[in-house]
């Protein structure tokens, strides 16, 4: 009893420590973003039309660009803590918060679906290859895995779209839409494509972790005890083999959200990634800064959540 209480105590301390580290990381990301953007040549008010010096001064005052750099940094941080990322320079009357609120859910749904595809596929195919080690399914799947790791996501996206166009033309009806967003049928192809690279990676990981367990003492014990094979497979092998897969899910979420840029561009999905690329092309500094910090905070949070979950699932994990 006492032992479990200290464990829980340790866990809470570990969680608080991770959260504090996360907040510091986000602050550093915000700082790096702010000073990086201030070193960009030119300024956001110079881009469009030529304005008279008076108007320029007024605009600078409006956006607070006439104040000393450190003061601007202070205002920026204070606003950000209050959850305000500022106003877009390129799109009038649109705040960065609006843009994030409107477009992030789209990216999030796409990302979650891909993670689900990648996770399920990776575990399934990884287990399949390990069971059929060095036999045909193993060879075929591992060949596909190498392809999946070597082919860039935009090539997959293009191929997927081309396939859809051809299949739709062949059947005369649209089984899945080629581009766009809105219904469930719009989501299937892009999230599959987005998850492919991660799926390949997870399959390889799952396979090696399954094979490692194959040689473990506890598996041999379970077999010699005469447990039914399905029970051995599900409870002893699969459950333990999934653990390393869970650890890499955090970084995988990062890979998938940024990989989402390409898929959003190719499939014309109104997600935040596409807006980020657009903001970069339009030098929309506030949107660039806001999105970077938001994405950064999101990724840091995801990694922490996955680590904390992992601590819950696997009691052997060292909390430090």
């Amino acid at each position, binding site marked *: 009893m006492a032992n479990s209480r200290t464990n829980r105590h340790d866990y809470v301390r570990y969680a608080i420590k991770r959260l504090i580290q996360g907040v510091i*990381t986000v602050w*550093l*990301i915000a700082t*790096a*973003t702010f000073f*990086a*953007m201030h*070193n*960009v*040549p030119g300024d956001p008010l110079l881009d469009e039309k030529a304005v008279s010096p008076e108007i320029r001064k007024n605009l600078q005052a409006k956006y607070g660009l006439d104040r000393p750099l450190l003061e601007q940094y202070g205002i920026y941080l204070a606003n950000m803590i209050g959850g305000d990322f500022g106003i877009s320079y390129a799109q009038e009357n649109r705040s960065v918060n609006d843009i994030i609120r409107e477009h992030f859910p789209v990216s999030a749904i796409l990302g979650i679906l891909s993670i689900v595809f990648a996770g399920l596929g990776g575990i399934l195919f990884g287990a399949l290859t390990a069971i059929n080690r060095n036999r045909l399914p193993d060879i075929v799947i591992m060949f596909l895995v*190498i*392809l999946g*790791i*070597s*082919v*860039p*996501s*935009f*090539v997959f996206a*293009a191929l997927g*779209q*081309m396939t859809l*166009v051809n299949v739709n033309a062949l059947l005369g009806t649209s089984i899945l839409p080629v581009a766009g967003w809105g219904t469930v049928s719009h989501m299937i192809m892009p999230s599959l494509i987005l998850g492919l690279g991660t799926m390949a990676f997870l399959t390889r990981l799952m*396979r*090696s972790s399954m*094979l*490692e367990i194959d040689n473990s003492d506890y598996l041999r014990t379970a077999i010699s005890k005469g447990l039914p094979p399905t029970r051995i497979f599900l409870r002893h092998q699969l459950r333990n083999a999934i653990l390393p897969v869970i650890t890499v899910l955090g970084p995988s979420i*990062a890979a998938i959200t*940024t990989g989402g*840029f*390409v898929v959003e*561009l*190719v499939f014309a999905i109104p997600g935040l990634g596409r807006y*980020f*690329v657009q903001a*970069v*092309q339009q*030098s929309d500094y506030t949107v*660039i800064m806001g*999105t*970077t910090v938001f*994405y*950064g905070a999101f*990724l*840091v949070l995801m*990694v922490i959540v996955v680590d904390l979950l992992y601590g819950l699932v696997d009691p052997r994990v060292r909390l430090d």
Partner: protein
Amino acid sequence: MEVTFSFERTRAISRTEVTTRPSLSYWQDAWRRFKVNPRSLISLYIVATLGLFTLVGPWVWTIDPTLQDLDQISVPPGADRRARVVGPHVRWEVDETNNAIPQTLSATQLAVIGEATTQAVRLAWNPVVGASGYRVYRGIAEPASPDALGLPLIDIVNAKLTRFEDRLDLKSRTYFYSVIALSSAGLELGEYATLDVEVTRVITANEAIARGLSERRGPSLIGETVYLDLHPLGTDYLGRDMLARLMHGARVSLFIGIVAPFLYVFVGILYGSIAGFAAGRWDQLMMRFADFVVALPFLLFMILFKIVFNTEPGESGISAMLLAMILLSWPATARLVRGQILQIREEAYIGASRLLGAGSMYLILRHMIPNTMGVILVTLTFAVPGAIFTEAFLSFIGMGVAPPNPSWGSMCNEGIKTMLTAPHELVFPAVFISLTVLVFNLLGDGLRDALDTRMRSAN
């Protein structure tokens, strides 16, 4: 009895202990193990071939990658390059009006007059009942409905003017010409007639001579067949030679893919070995900073730094990309090297060297770095595909190498726009990227198995 000891060498025993094979150095042994694996050997050959393609290729295939061949736009490899030489275009002289009895519109009425060539396609049809004009469409696919006839070429507002000469940007291919009758209000009357027309490529004698396609001169050239410029891998949407662009693109992509890892692995080695050697507080501090850099969202900051460093509008953007990659990618190597150094510094030979009076710099350079070389080489090989991916990704979203410099990523970006009509423009650069990444992955696997026994994969 006295025992005598003999201290002479016993030859027989020493002969049996002679080693039959000379002992191998670390690198010889690694090469021996590397050679056994056919996959890594094949990948090494492919890497060498890619290197040749990149370095020697542009000397052999000397076509300028920015040169546009406007006669051959988006041409797939192996396409027909023949062109018949003809005289200059002659005006189509016929009566203005067609007084034939109007009929209902059907496909049989539509006819090509003369030969359909890339110089001109001449269409004629009979007057249509109830029509007060006609609209002519040109499509590249068989029309499925009156709404999908293709490109409208002309509105004719005279029921008796039933002919049309198309001279608009004709290519050597099959076109589907559709004629639809118009009401007096200018509205389309339901039915349409479609005719598929195979267009043959022709070139005027003057142009053929001007472009050096034929040795002979003068009007005698007319009727001859000449061959347009050869493009072994086809051309892109601006008529630029794909092979030349792939070679020059390889220079950019492989340059970034190989130089960037070299640079950031070097930075990582320095940082990691200093941290590992310093140990204690400094080590902690330096590694905290490395942790922070790792936590930055990589591609977002790649883009951000790319904006910050891209000062001149005319720049290719390669140096900005290299700098951004170095700033963001060094921590992985630094961590690895630090771990190795922490391990090695406890070894006895370091202590011995220190006893003999070796300084810190000497220890790092002479003992620690050489002993981590194997691990570093493996990291380097695995870093190449990552860097190639990053370059391709940035170029694909338009943040990479500035046009007109080709890179495989930007070629994919351009190719994706025409992928349905000219898939080769996407397929070739995509295959090159994938093959390169694949080969470096396999090479890395092979090197890992050969160089580092501790890092060997489970299977």
